[in-house]
């Protein structure tokens, strides 16, 4: 036991002795881990958030299209759709965007009655809001410094400013779903946006038999040529292609970083300097076992790679979850289409950490230990000849 501690001590002293080399390796190694972990954490966080969105997404949504653009849909469309065989409830949804000049933020405004598709367990405070009240997402509350009972002025389509009272705030359990949300009563919604009493933003159509969804969608298109039924499958497909394309890019980056790593490891393996070889010979000659030398190199590799791994991983974590993946931002512009609020929920998947470790720490350790093993099994008498 003491022996192992002493060899560890000697390993640390060796690393310290070659501090520039050690720090250089740690710097490169950390950078690679940083890149790899950033990529991994980012893709995973995206997938998670997207799945979160999709889980709550309705099977079939019907929008009205006018001149190729999304239009408000008259309520009687819903009554007609309900008559199609196999259709259950048709729930109108009321939502829109609101630009807040004072913060420059774009919020999603919804009417409480029309939220048939969303789950609202993450509520703190009161829900649903009564007339003159709103319930807001955490992002909204933060950017406007709101708490329960504060007032929030909202300017309607008629130019009039209405003061709403904050009745509740969504917790940030799924910030993606609720972050930029302002929910008010249907009456207030109609009043603010002047949508009229007979029009909804879109319709959620329940279909009893999931296999019938495509059929129902086709029928709706026949009856109302000016509508666009969107099935969940279609949404999934869109996400899928997007993910595929992104993953392809991400994989390229991942591969590149891994390649850089292999080069580092290989360089180290090939680069057992004459000096290092000589030192191994000396240790061997004065009575170190081959296994002691392996242990020495193991500790060196272990310390180097765990310091680098932790530094890189923590760096990647902070980069993705606290600095909004700022370094990748240019490559990821497209994401903001899906995720308006670019603030991912911090999450570390232990499985990924283990995978990353296996792909980097293990090969690195092998690359450290193997060449010295080759040097250590040779007879030490070479040191007798200098």
């Amino acid at each position, binding site marked *: 036991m*003491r*022996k192992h501690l*002493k*060899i560890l*001590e*000697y390993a640390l*002293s*060796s690393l310290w*002795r*070659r501090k520039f080399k050690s720090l250089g390796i740690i710097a490169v190694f950390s950078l690679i881990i940083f890149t790899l972990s950033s990529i991994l954490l980012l893709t995973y966080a995206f997938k998670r958030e997207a799945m979160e969105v999709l889980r709550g997404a309705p099977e079939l949504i019907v929008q009205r299209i006018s001149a190729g653009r999304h239009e408000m849909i008259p309520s009687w469309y819903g009554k007609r759709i309900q008559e199609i065989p196999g259709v259950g409830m048709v729930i109108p949804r009321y939502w829109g965007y609101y630009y807040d000049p004072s913060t420059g933020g774009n919020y999603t405004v919804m009417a409480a009655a029309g939220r048939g598709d969303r789950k609202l367990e993450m509520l703190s405070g009161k829900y649903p809001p009564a007339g003159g009240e709103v319930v807001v997402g955490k992002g909204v509350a933060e950017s406007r410094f709101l708490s329960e009972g504060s007032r929030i002025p909202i300017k309607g389509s008629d130019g009039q400013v209405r003061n709403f009272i904050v009745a509740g705030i969504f917790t940030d359990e799924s910030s993606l779903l609720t972050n930029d949300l302002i929910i008010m009563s249907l009456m207030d919604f109609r009043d603010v946006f002047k949508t009229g009493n007979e029009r909804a933003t879109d319709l959620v159509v329940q279909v009893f038999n999931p296999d019938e969804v495509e059929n129902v969608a086709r029928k709706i298109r026949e009856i109302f040529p000016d509508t666009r039924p969107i099935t969940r499958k279609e949404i999934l497909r869109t996400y899928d292609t997007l993910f595929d394309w992104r993953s392809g890019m991400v994989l390229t980056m991942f591969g590149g970083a891994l390649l850089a790593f292999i080069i580092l490891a290989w360089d180290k393996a090939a680069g057992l300097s004459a000096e290092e070889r*000589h*030192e191994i010979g*000396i*240790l*061997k*000659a*004065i*009575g*170190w*076992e*081959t296994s*002691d030398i392996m242990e020495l190199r193991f500790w060196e590799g272990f310390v180097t790679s765990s310091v680098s791994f932790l530094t890189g991983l923590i760096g990647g974590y902070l980069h993705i979850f606290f600095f909004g993946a700022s370094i990748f931002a240019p490559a990821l512009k497209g994401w903001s289409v899906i995720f308006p609020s670019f603030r991912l929920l911090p999450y570390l998947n232990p499985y990924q950490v283990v995978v990353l470790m296996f792909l980097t720490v293990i090969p690195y350790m092998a690359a450290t230990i193997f060449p010295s093993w080759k040097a250590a*099994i040779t*007879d*030490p*008498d070479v*040191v*007798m*000849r*200098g």
Partner: protein
Amino acid sequence: MTNDTIIRAENLSLCINRGRPNEVWPVRDVSLQIKRGEVVVLKGPSGSGKTSLLSLLGCMSRPTEGRILVHGRDVAKLPERFLTEIRRKRFGFIFQQFNLIPGISVRENVMLPLYPVDISFREMRERADSLMDRLGLSGRSHFRVKGLSGGEQQRVAIARALVNDPEVIFADEPTAHLDTKLSSDLVGILEGLKKEGRTILIATHDPLLYEQGFIDRVLEMRDGSIR
């Protein structure tokens, strides 16, 4: 073989690059015995095989032919682990090139053979410090080896060879890098070690060393054999 025989070599031969055009036999058919407390010098011209024989006797390399018995045990056939153990527990080496590790301190260099031994750090340090005291290195304990003079490096190498309290000390051309004054200092140190009862094996072609009175035997080597 008496109990007093520590190392015994029987018809030792060493071949390098066997079967290839550059095949050489640095050691040919050498038989000898080293007794406890003896100081033996291997003398001979450059290339006569002194270093090669020393490294065979010191269990650093294996003979191509013949046997080496350490305390009656044929080590030539033992697994490497045992050879290492013998070097670690019984032998101390003073190399021609000193072979110190340049980046670490004098004390760490001296302690080097003790890292794989199951003793505490404190004991390691105590042993190293007392040896450095004895060899006049106490003020140098935290110096890097790089900055030391040749004589000081030599003494660090000696301290390292002694730190495991070895039975046998192997010294290969110990005066090669020393001037006359330092060489006679070294002779003094070796004499002291002999008085402690240690067995010493020296390879040298330096008359100043092999003509000393404390030397028990001089073996002359030529072309790998002892005459």
